[in-house]
C-alpha cells in the first residue's frame, strides 16, 4: 500500500510534465468485454507505464497528452444485475466512465442506456461518459446498429466509439478521446481542481503541489 503512495509521490522528480490522475469507472452488462477492453488498453501500452496490479478489476495506465500525462485508474464494476446496487460506490466521484455494451446483444445496449441515465443522474455532474460498442470485430453478428448508438450518444452528449478488444480497434482512441475531454482545469491545476471534485484520492499532485506543479 505504501508503495502506492510513494509511487505517486515519485512523480515529484518528474520535470515539466503535468500529471493528472483520473478515476475512470467501467460499467456495462456482464460479459460485454469491459475488462478485455481495458486490458487491451493497458497491456497494449508500454509495460513500464503500466502498473502492476493484483488483478484486472483495478488497472492503472497512463497516456501522454501533449505535455500532460493523464493517468487513469480504472475501476471495473461487476455487471451482474445482483450487484447493481454496489455500482454507485464505484462511480460516485469518478471523473470518467466508460459504459460498454456488446453490439451483438441489444439487451446490453439497453442496459448501457440505463447506466448512462443513472450516471447522469447520480454521478458527478461533470463526469465524462463514453459509450463503447464493443465486439466490433463481430460485425456480421451485429444487432445494434452503429447509427442507432451514435444517435443516442449525440443526443445524450456522450463520446461514442465502436471498439474491439480483440482487434484493438479504437481502444486506445477511446481512452485518448476521454483523456482529451477531461476538464482543462485539472490539467492546468490538478491539485486544485481535483480537490474540488473531491476525488483526488489517488492524485499524486494533491499532496505534492511543489512537486508537480512547482515547475509549471
Amino acid at each position: 500500500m505504501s508503495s502506492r503512495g510513494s509511487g505517486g509521490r515519485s512523480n515529484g522528480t518528474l520535470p515539466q510534465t503535468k500529471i493528472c490522475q483520473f478515476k475512470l469507472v467501467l460499467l456495462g452488462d456482464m460479459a460485454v468485454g469491459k475488462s478485455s477492453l481495458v486490458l487491451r488498453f493497458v497491456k497494449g501500452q508500454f509495460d513500464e507505464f503500466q502498473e502492476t496490479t493484483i488483478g484486472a478489476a483495478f488497472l492503472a495506465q497512463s497516456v501522454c497528452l501533449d505535455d500532460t500525462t493523464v493517468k487513469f485508474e480504472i475501476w471495473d464494476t461487476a455487471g451482474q444485475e445482483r450487484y447493481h446496487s454496489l455500482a454507485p460506490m464505484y462511480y460516485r466521484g469518478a471523473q470518467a466512465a466508460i459504459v460498454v455494451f456488446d453490439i451483438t446483444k441489444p439487451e446490453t445496449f439497453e442496459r448501457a442506456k440505463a447506466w448512462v441515465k443513472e450516471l447522469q443522474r447520480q454521478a458527478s455532474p461533470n463526469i465524462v461518459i463514453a459509450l463503447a460498442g464493443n465486439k466490433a470485430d463481430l460485425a456480421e453478428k451485429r444487432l445494434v446498429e452503429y447509427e442507432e448508438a451514435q444517435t443516442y450518444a449525440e443526443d445524450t452528449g456522450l463520446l461514442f466509439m465502436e471498439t474491439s478488444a480483440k482487434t484493438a480497434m479504437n481502444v486506445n482512441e477511446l481512452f485518448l478521446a476521454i483523456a482529451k475531454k477531461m476538464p482543462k482545469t485539472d490539467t492546468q491545476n490538478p491539485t486544485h481542481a481535483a480537490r474540488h471534485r473531491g476525488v483526488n484520492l489517488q492524485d499524486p499532485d494533491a499532496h505534492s503541489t511543489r512537486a508537480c506543479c512547482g515547475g509549471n
Partner: protein
Amino acid sequence: MMEVSQDTGHTSPLTAALPSTSPLSHPPSRPCRPRPPPPPTAKSSQLPSRPPLPPSTPPSLPPPLPPVLAPPPSSLPLPLSPTPVSPPLISLQATPSSDPTPSISPAPSPISTVSLSSPNSPPPPPVIPPSSPAPPSMSSIDRLVGSTSVWQPRELSQEQATSIIEKEPAGAFLVHSVEDKATMISVRLPDEQGAPHVHNVTVKQHKTFIHLEGSSLVFDDIVKLISFYCASRDILAIPLRLPQAITTATKREDLEVISSLGADFWTSDLNQQAKNKDLVLHQNDTIQPSLYIYINPVTVEDKPDKDLNPSTLSKHDVITNQNITSSLQNGEASQKVSTQVKPQTKSGQEIKYKRPPPRPPSLSTGSGMGLLFCPAPSLQTSSSATQDTEKKEEGRGGVGDREERKSTSPLPCRPPVPPQSRAAPPLRPAPVRRTSHRKSNDREAGEGTAREKGQNPAKKPEREEGGEREVDKNRSKAGQLGEDAAEAEDSSQQQEDEVNKDDKEDEKEEKEVKAEEDKQKPSTQCPPPAKRPSRPVPPPRVNLNLGIKMPPPSPARRPDVSLYSPQGGAALGTDPDSCSTSSTEEEVEPNQEQEQNHNRLSESRSPKAAVRRKPTTVMLDRARYRLSTVITGLISHERRLTQRIVELARDPLSYFGNLVKEHRAFTLETLPNHASSTELLQEIRQMMTQLKSYLLQSTELQAMLEPQHQYTQDKLESIVEAALCKSVLKPLREHIYQSLEKLHAGDNSLKQLAQNQSAVLGSTTTALGVTTAVPEASAMEKISIKLNNLHQEYSPQKKIELLLKTCKIIYDSMSVSGPGRAHGADDFLPVMMYVLARSNLSALQLDVEYMMELMDPSLTLGEGSYYLTTTYGALEHIKTFDQQRSATRQLSREVQDSIHRWERRRTLNQERMAQGSVRDFLTVCCPEIGTNPKTLGVLPTTTIQQLAEQCATRFEQESFILSVYKDGVHQPTAPTELALSVKNSCQPGAYCFVYHPISQSVTPAIRSCPKDPPPAPPEECFLPADVTAVSPVEPEEEEESLISL
C-alpha cells in the same frame, strides 16, 4: 467474446501491433525511471508496445569468443585478500563485449563468463583462456537479470509462451507462471523431429528452494536456476539460451530497451534480427552445453556440505567470498551469484527477503541494480529516496507478487554463510545481511520460547516489540560479528538436521531450540568486539532524552522496516504461510520502559553475543565489524529516524511526547462518546494528522534529522506517519476496536451481517454469480490467516497490504479454472462474496472502517482504495442481502455515497494537512510550566481570549491569565491575538503556554515542554543534558498510564 477478448488482451506480444494514435504511443515519462532513448514523438504506425530501438543495435556478432577469462572457479586458490580480484561470477555472456560501456558496476571485475548462446566455442572448463581483451561491461548475470521481463514476462499463459518459443531457436526459453500458479519453464527443443517442439517443465518449490521437476538441483531463485540451466542442461534436453539480442547487448541501455519490451521483445525486430544472425552463426550448435560454470546446487535429499574448517574450504567457499567481495564493489548482481553456494548457507527457510522482482524496472543505474537484489529492508537508504520510491512503485500492487516471490523462491540476496565468515576478507554486505536474517530468525524463534517459558524477561520486551528485530539486525551488524561466525556455525550444523526436516515448522522448532541454547550460553568465550556489553539489566532511563539526540552512527538503533516499506513488509514475518505476522508477534505492547532502554542500549545485549566463537574468526570479525559499522550508519538511518520519533513520542519529557500522551488520553476519554464509528475514527485520524503536522514543523524533528541524510518532505512525512502509527495507533488499537464493536452492536449492523452471512453462505456459487473457480480449502485457509493478521494489525497501511494479499490469493484461486485469463470485476466480486461469506465478517467490518478512516490521507491508495471499496461494498451487499431475490435491495443513499464521502474526507484531511493544520493544538500548563499540561484544540481564528476561555473550562480556573513562556521569560498575551500566531511566532518546542494566576511570578522553566509535577523517583528522572534542570518531571504514574494504554 469475453474469452476471446480476454485472450487478446494478453497476447499483445503475439498479435503484434495495436494500432495506436500517436499520443497514446508516447509513453508518458515516468518519474524515477530513467529511460535511455527518448520516446519517439510520433509513431502512430509503430507498434505501440515497442519502445524505440536502441540507439545502437547490437553489433553484428562475431562468433562467440571464449568468455573472458577468470580463473575457473574450481581451480581458484583461496584468496584471503580482501581485494575483490576476479570474482568468478557466473556469466552468461555470449560475446564478450568489446564495447566497454559504463556498466553499473563501479568496478567491473574480471568475470568468468560462460557462453550462453554461443555454445560452440567455449573451451572446456575450467580452463578459460582470456580471449577477449575487453572485459564485458555486463556480466551475464546482469544480462539475465536485466532481461527478466523478456524471459519471464508477466502474466504469460503457457499457450502464449509456447507460441513465442516455437519460433525461437533451440534453447530459447520462457518462464511463465499464471497468477502465482506453478511456475513453468517452456524450452524450445531442437528441431529433431521436424516440428518445433516445446518442452514445458515445472519449477517446483522445495522448502525455500526451487528446482526443476525431476531434478534434484535446487536454487535460491529463478534467476539462479536459469543461469545454471543456461550453462548446464541437467535434466533438460538442451541448455537454456537467452536470446541473442540479449547476450550480445553490450550496453546497459540496449538491455534496457530490450527489457522494456517485455514479452513483446520476442516479436520485435530486435529479436528477429539477432535471431537470424544467431542462426547463421550457430547452426546446429545449440545442444552442446557450454562451459560449466561453477555451481553448487544442493541435491534436495542430500545433506549439505558442511565443511567448516577454513583450511579445507572448498572452492565454493572461495567463490562465495569472491562473489561477495565483488558485490561489494559492484553492488549488484553478483550478490545473486554468491548465493549459489547453497550448501554452506543456512537453510533457506530462514531467509525472508524477497527475491528480486522479476522485472527489473530499469538497469540504468548501478545502484538500481543493487537495489533490485538487495533485501530492501536492510540496504535501503534514504539517500536514495528516489530509488526508494521507485522501488515502492515497482512494488506497487505487488503485495501479492511479493508473496509469490517469496513462495517460489527464497531470496537471492542471502549471503553465503559459514565458511566464508571465517575465511573471507571483510565482507560488508554479507555480514549485515546475514546477521539480519539470522538475527531476525533467531528472534522469531526465541520469541516463542521466551514467551512460552517466561524466561529471560529482560529480553522479552525487546523481542516482542515490533521492529525490535531490526534492532538486532543493527546491533548485530555493529557489534556482533563474532556472533555471526558462531551462528554460521550453528546454522550449518543445524542445517544438516533441518534439511532433512520436511517442513518449515520443524525447522522452526529446531531453531527455537537452537535459539534457546544460544540464549543459555554464557557469553564468555569471546568478548564481543566493542559495544557489546553483556546483557544488561535495563538501565535507568538516563537515555531518554539523550537518546533523541543520539548520533547517527549508533548502529544499534532498531530500524523499523515493518512500517511503510513494502519491502519491509516482505522482510518481516511475511511468510505467506506463517500465521505469525509482524503485528501479532512483534507488537505485543511490552513494558515500554524496558523497551526504551533496550532500544537505547541496543548495542548491548544478548547472551548469544559470544557464543561459540572461535579464535580464528576474531580478526575477520573485527574487520567486518568495522565495515559493518560503516554500512550500518548508511543503511539504517531511516529506520533509526522512525524509531527515534517513536521514542520521542514516548518521551514524556519532550513536548511532542507530551502532546502524544495528551492526545491519547483525550482519545481514550472520548472514545465512548462518539455517535458513529466514522466520527470516532475521524477524530483519531485528525489527531494523528495534527500530530504529524506539528512534528513536521517542529524543531524536535529537526533535531533528530541527521544532516547527512536528506529526506524529501514526502519521505519524511511517511516516516513520521509510520512512527505515529506505532506510537499512537498501536496502543489505541484495542480500544478503538472495542468502541467500534460497541457502536455497531448498538446499530445492529453486526448482527445483521451475521444473519445474512449464513444466507449468503447458503447460496450456490451460481446464485452468487461465480463464473470461475473458487478458492479451495487450502486457499481459504491462507485467506483466513491473512484476514486474521489483517485484523490484528494496527497500522492501516499494513492492513491494506494484507487486504491486497488476500485479494491476490482470491485471484489466484480464480485462475485455476482458466489460467492466463485476466479476471475483471464481473468475475472477482462474486468470488469475493463467496470468500467473505466464509470469513469473520464482523471483524472485517471493523477492519474496513479502520482502514478507510485511519489511512494516511496523503497516501495515494489506488489499488488499495479499489479493493477497500470492493470489500466495503461486498459487506454492505451481504448486510442487505435479500434471500428471496438473492440480490441486494437498493443500498441506502448513504451507503452508496459512502465511498465518495470517504474519499472526500480523505481529500479534506489531506488538504488540511497541506495547509498546515486547520485545527492545531496547543499545550497549556497550569498554573506553571510543567504542571498539568492540557492539549487544547485551536482553530486559526481562535484568539487568546477564546483560548483562555477554553483553559478556564479545562482547568476549572476562572481568573487565571494566559501567557507564553519563551526566551526565558513570561510574555503576556493580548486577548485579541490569535493563539496560533502566538504559537507560530515561537520557536517550535521552545515555548510554553501557561495559564496562571495573574500575580504569579512564574518559575523559570527548563524546557519548553510541559512537565509533570514532582515527585519523580530520582532514578527515573533525568534531565536533558542541555538544560539547566530544575523541576523534576515525569512521575511514575504518568509512565504507567502510558504503558497501560
